[in-house]
């Protein structure tokens, strides 16, 4: 068993794969080092749902055999990763972060896990999450089977949710990349709070077969990683049509940012107020610097605004109706009372009473939203907004009571872009862009459906000019 150098833990996918191919280390040793680190440090942040040390070593051994016969399978080969615990992994507990499902075991893998296995990535553990990915709404960060997600930059702060463990594990160097999911903000929020790069793909681009269904028309699976480039490689591996997912778009993704339009031809729509009065004061300096860096990359910034819709109520209505159906048995059986958060229990129960007319009205409004976004993306190529208005909230802070509120009369800017982007099925790339109160902050780029290469091209250029994505928290 060879020693693994410490610098691997925050290395990128491409760096690690290159070093493995150069025989600097074996995949088995790399997997052991990462899996043991995840098992040891993951609980410190409540980020670990299930360690897979032995399984990872077995899988990595096979990967090393591949190298012996020059069977190279792309940049993810030999790379250790973690999966949000809503993804089925054959024969192992998949808890969905919730006590009623603590003993749940599936006899098959989620499609994304199989796809990563095919390219030689090594699963080292399942990662913690907000129970049922937050379905029903929740008041406290403690709404999880594994306790509140603690931010690796400051354990008195929340990691964000619902993909808490996924973002934390990447930020703390416990995995090289992780899979998470987003229904409404569950990739954007934890990526922003933990200071990692996160990609929410276009709805339908990545199969959800084997993933917990919270909302059939909103759920997406996407990666957390150290760089935009890594996210591109991961998305290429996990995307593609899947007859087992009725929402599959039947479309593949090939990471090729070099073939997108030159940045100098791109119009990036933004609202200055989002980075000023609508942002927390401590974050404004970082956002100003980030805006300047984006501009220096060559794009043209143009002021814009979102089409006017009640995005929050529309999204909440769609989600309530679909989660009620998805978890009807849990709610009706009374097992819902085993969840950790009283607001979530109440939200799930009430959602059973939602009238069909409200759901259909919301879905019809959603059609108009899609049409309006199509028009908007004829005027601008990409939208730019803060990932969150400020850094991570305190761990015991109520999450359903507003948080930071700008002063009355502040223009709305791109407020509601998380709900709007999810309702329209749009991709989003989260890029760390600085610090506020010694905690990371980030912005998000949102594009037209299937414009991931464009977002990644901008992200790659931004990260070639800045080093925020290279910062990592001290081990506390």
């Amino acid at each position, binding site marked *: 068993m060879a020693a693994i150098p410490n610098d691997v833990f925050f290395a990128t996918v491409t760096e690690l794969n290159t070093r493995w191919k150069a025989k600097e280390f074996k995949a088995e040793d790399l997997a052991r080092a990462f899996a043991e680190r995840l098992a040891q440090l993951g609980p410190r942040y409540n980020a670990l749902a299930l360690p897979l040390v032995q399984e990872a070593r077995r899988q990595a051994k096979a990967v090393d055999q591949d190298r012996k016969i020059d069977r190279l399978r792309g940049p993810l080969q030999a790379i250790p990763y973690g999966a949000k615990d809503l993804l089925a992994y054959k024969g192992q507990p998949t808890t969905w972060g919730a006590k009623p499902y603590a003993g749940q075991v599936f006899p098959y893998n989620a499609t994304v896990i199989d796809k990563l296995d095919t390219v030689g990535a090594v699963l080292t553990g399942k990662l913690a999450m907000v129970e049922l990915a937050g379905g029903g709404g929740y008041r406290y960060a403690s709404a*999880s089977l594994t306790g509140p997600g603690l931010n690796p930059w400051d354990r008195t702060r929340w990691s964000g949710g619902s993909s808490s463990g996924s973002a934390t594990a990447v930020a703390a160097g416990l995995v090289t990349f992780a899979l998470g999911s987003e229904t409404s903000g569950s990739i954007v929020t934890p990526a922003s709070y933990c200071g990692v790069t996160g990609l929410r793909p276009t709805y339908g681009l990545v199969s959800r077969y084997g993933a917990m269904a919270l909302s059939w028309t909103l759920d997406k699976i996407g990666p957390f990683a150290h760089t935009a480039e890594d996210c591109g490689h991961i998305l290429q591996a996990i995307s593609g049509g899947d007859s087992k997912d009725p929402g599959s778009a039947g479309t593949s993704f090939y990471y090729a940012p070099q073939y997108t339009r030159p940045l100098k031809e791109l119009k990036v729509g933004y609202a200055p107020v989002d980075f000023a009065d609508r942002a927390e004061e401590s974050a404004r300096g970082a956002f100003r610097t980030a805006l300047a860096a984006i501009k220096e990359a060559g794009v043209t910034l143009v002021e814009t605004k979102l089409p006017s819709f009640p995005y929050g*109520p529309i999204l909440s*209505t769609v989600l309530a109706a679909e989660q009620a159906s998805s978890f009807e048995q849990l709610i009706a059986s009374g097992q819902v009372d085993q969840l*950790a958060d009283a607001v979530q229990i109440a939200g799930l129960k009430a959602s059973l009473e939602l009238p069909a007319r409200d759901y*259909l009205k919301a879905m*019809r409004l959603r059609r108009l939203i899609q049409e309006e976004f199509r028009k908007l993306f004829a005027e601008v190529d990409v939208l730019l907004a803060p990932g969150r208005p400020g850094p991570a909230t305190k761990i015991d802070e109520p999450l359903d009571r507003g948080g930071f509120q700008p002063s009355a009369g502040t223009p709305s800017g791109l407020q509601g872009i998380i709900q709007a982007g999810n309702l329209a099925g749009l991709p989003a790339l989260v890029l760390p862009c600085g610090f506020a109160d010694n905690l990371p902050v980030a912005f998000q780029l949102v594009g037209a459906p299937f414009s991931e290469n464009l977002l990644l091209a901008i992200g790659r250029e931004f990260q070639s000019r800045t080093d925020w994505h290279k910062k990592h928290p001290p081990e506390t």
Partner: protein
Amino acid sequence: MKLTRRQLAAVVSAATLAPAQTTAPVDETQAARDRLKANSDALARHDLPPATEPAFRFQA
């Protein structure tokens, strides 16, 4: 399926970490109903062209 002792311990210890929870207080359930009603009211304020069909597909 068979679980190793380590896996079993991980599941059991995770389960015991979860805070104990009894049934949701009545006012939380009412608050949740009120939120649904407020959402419904917000939707009702938006008129729709009669031919608008629900969104189920997303295209580039």
